[in-house]
């Protein structure tokens, strides 16, 4: 008999119109790191939500230490020592770190919070596992990486020993990922059992002991990571072989499309500039990437470039035209496409249908608008053409409310929209965040296609693999400044890391 702490046997969970989990069996050994792999929408989050008591499955049993248990709500799960770091963090923005950690298991006397006690416990835990947090900081003021540490502390605070991590690394920087891997290993070494969801095979290869694979709601199998390869895992996951290296030829840069000169952006949080004197250019037919650790001004820079945020000083030229002071609408219609970082916040009107979202920046164009009336038929045709071309899958076709689509398909819809618009410059910010390898492969291919079609591409990514694989030139941003420019073919991850951490910088003369 194996020593399983948790066994999920023949779990079936249906949502109206979809079977998210179809007879899935998952067994977690004590002290192991068990990876869960699957495409977007394969049912991983759902399975974990079942384990955590957020959903009740239609069929199947869950056993803890061989005994059958009923998990009807997160309280039950907590009582069984199950904790979960959710894919979308479950943190209250305006609460302090400490409040978030203790929420739901607050130490109290006569109903009054006794925070001193809690603070001590949290600080002890944070020291022990090297999870640095400031207990008094507000969640909305701290970085995503820090927020994740808070989520982990939440589990540890509750003395959980079965830890679920749902895509914890999707939002982390490489350094943070390394840290997390180490923490996970430490936790496992202490005897805690970990379920780990990720789309990144490297991570699985690095930390996981075993890996279970789901595809389209079905259980495919479980493998020992030591005896497998990335290729095998990915083909189990998508049912075919996936190429990891991006297929691309040497770039053939032509005319300058985007020219950025001395752009500065005022910070909303402190008195320094969040973007300082940034200058560079992007030519047609090349992919220029801004790399850097999250929070070094990339978001602010893109905001200034696209017009979402105010620019303090500097000049932006697009195809020879000064667009510094132009409106977003003007930029949109004069050659700029933008795949935004946050697809829910900016990229989509979640309550609009797919077709309505497809014309978000174009509804006023003559193609879709006659005397102020929207041409619904054109809209439908256009949307159907795009979704077909880019393989965007949705329940009710063009009429699907976007909110109900999976993240991967939502992203594909945005990519389709932005690529199809008339543009010279494509700004792609984290275009593959949270997507499965199949989808990533697809989007990378599309981006390269764009490049080869003679478009200028500005890629902003935190993902080092993506940066190295996709770009023709890499600019590294550190504390709001471009500190170096490297050629991906000549550099190493180590060198890139040095730039990104501020340990190394070029003394760039005013670039060309």
């Amino acid at each position, binding site marked *: 008999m194996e020593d399983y702490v948790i066994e999920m046997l023949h779990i079936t969970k249906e949502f109206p119109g979809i079977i998210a989990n179809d007879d899935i069996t998952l067994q977690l050994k004590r002290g192991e790191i068990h990876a869960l792999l699957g495409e977007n929408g394969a049912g991983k989050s759902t399975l974990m939500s079942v384990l*955590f008591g957020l959903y009740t499955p239609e069929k199947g049993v869950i056993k803890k230490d061989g005994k059958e248990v009923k998990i009807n709500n997160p*309280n039950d799960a907590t009582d069984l020592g199950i904790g979960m770091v*959710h894919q979308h963090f*479950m*943190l*209250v*923005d305006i609460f302090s770190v400490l409040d978030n950690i203790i929420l739901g298991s*607050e130490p*109290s006397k006569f109903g009054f*919070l006794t925070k001193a006690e809690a603070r001590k416990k949290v600080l002890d835990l944070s020291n022990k596992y090297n999870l640095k947090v400031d207990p008094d900081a507000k969640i909305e003021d701290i970085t995503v990486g820090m927020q994740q540490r808070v989520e982990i502390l939440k589990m540890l605070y509750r003395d959980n020993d079965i830890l679920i991590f749902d895509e914890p690394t999707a939002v982390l920087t490489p350094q943070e990922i390394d840290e997390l891997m180490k923490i996970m290993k430490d936790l496992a070494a202490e005897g805690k059992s970990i379920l780990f969801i990720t789309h990144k095979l490297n991570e699985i290869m690095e930390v996981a002991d075993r890996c279970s694979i789901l595809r389209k709601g079905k259980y495919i199998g479980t493998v020992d990571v030591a005896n497998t390869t990335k290729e095998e895992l990915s083909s189990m996951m998508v049912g075919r072989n996936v190429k990891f290296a991006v297929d691309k030829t040497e770039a053939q840069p032509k005319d300058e499309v985007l020219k950025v000169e001395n752009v500065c952006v005022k910070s909303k949080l402190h008195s320094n500039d969040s973007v300082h004197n940034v200058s560079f250019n992007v030519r047609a037919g090349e992919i220029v990437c801004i790399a850097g650790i999250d929070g070094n001004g990339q978001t602010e820079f893109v905001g200034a470039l696209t017009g979402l945020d105010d620019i303090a000083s500097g000049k932006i030229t697009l195809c020879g035209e000064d667009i510094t002071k132009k409106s977003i609408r003007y930029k949109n219609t004069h050659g700029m496409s933008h795949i935004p970082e946050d697809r829910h916040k900016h990229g989509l009107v979640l309550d609009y249908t797919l077709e309505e979202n497809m014309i978000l920046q174009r509804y006023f164009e003559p193609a879709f608008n006659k005397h102020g009336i929207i041409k619904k038929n054109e809209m439908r045709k256009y949307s159907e053409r795009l979704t077909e071309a880019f393989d965007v899958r949705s329940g009710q076709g063009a009429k699907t409310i976007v909110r109900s689509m999976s993240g991967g398909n939502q992203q594909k819809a945005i990519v389709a929209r932005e690529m199809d618009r008339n543009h010279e410059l494509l700004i792609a910010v984290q275009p593959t965040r949270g997507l499965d390898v199949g989808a990533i492969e697809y989007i990378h291919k599309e981006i390269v296609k764009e490049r080869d079609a003679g478009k200028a591409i500005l890629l902003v990514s935190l993902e080092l693999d993506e940066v190295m694989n996709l770009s023709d030139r890499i600019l590294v941003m550190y504390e709001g400044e471009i500190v170096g420019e490297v050629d991906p073919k000549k550099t190493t991850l180590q060198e890139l890391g040095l730039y990104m951490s501020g340990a190394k910088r070029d003394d760039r003369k005013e670039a060309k």
Partner: protein
Amino acid sequence: MLLLIQYTLIFSAVLILVALGGMFSERSGIINLGLEGIMVFGAMAGAMVMVLLPADASRFTIIVLTLLASAVAGMLSSLLIAVACINFKADQTLIGTALNMLATASATVIIKGFNTARSGGTDFSAKLDYVRGHNAFMFSIGKLQLSWFIVVAAVLLVVAIVFFYKTKLALRIRSCGEHPQAADSVGINVYAMRYIGVLMSGFLGGLGGIIYICAANSTWHFDYGVAGAGFLALAVMIFGQWKPERIAWSAVLFALFRSLSNVYMGIGFLHALPISGTVYNMFPYIVSLIVLAFTSQNSRAPKAEGIPYDKGAR
């Protein structure tokens, strides 16, 4: 001057309580536009108790029972919001508005029935006289006429502040107004918290109602509702940015201006100014708009307010 203080105090008491009520409800995630209606129900129950208590009831009995009745009636009426908005995911705006209409209409019908029955068919007005009950609340310090209502409001304010910042329950309620999914994921019963928030608004709103109709009167015509006091409290709540201590001083500010519009004629130099009384009436609103213009840049309502919580497919 004395009158100004007196009226400011009593109006503050009303606004503080009702706005705090609104705050707890919204902090739990339920927008409470029905404060006006809750006030009417609270006022009605309190006034009925004052009318019905025997002539020899002690002052203490009158005070306690009146407050109790108002609070309970407020809570019962707030259940109408809770059930619809929490269990049935009704639109909170609509339910609030409906409750306001419902309150005035049913108070009119109920009081008419009550009076008719009590008088044997000679009095069928929607009006209650509660002079004796009202007097029980009054006391004075020197020449300053005060009422126990003010004391009650002050105590409740302190309690609310302590509760809001120091207790486990308040932390949980607040989390439900910001991120109910997060609350749920740590085992907090979002529905229960929202019920508590709404019931607290009923409790405080009901008390605010009885204080409002007793502020300067010992007769109330229930067919006129509470003439917008609930909406004013809502404004105070937003003005106070959903925080109890800020609500307190916003309420005082509002009450001050409102009292000023009522008693400015007694203050020589103000009356001498060539300003129409109506202008004074407008004053609190204009001033607060201006203040709001400067302070609202970072103001933020509880993030999840107004959105019914659905646990997913459970």
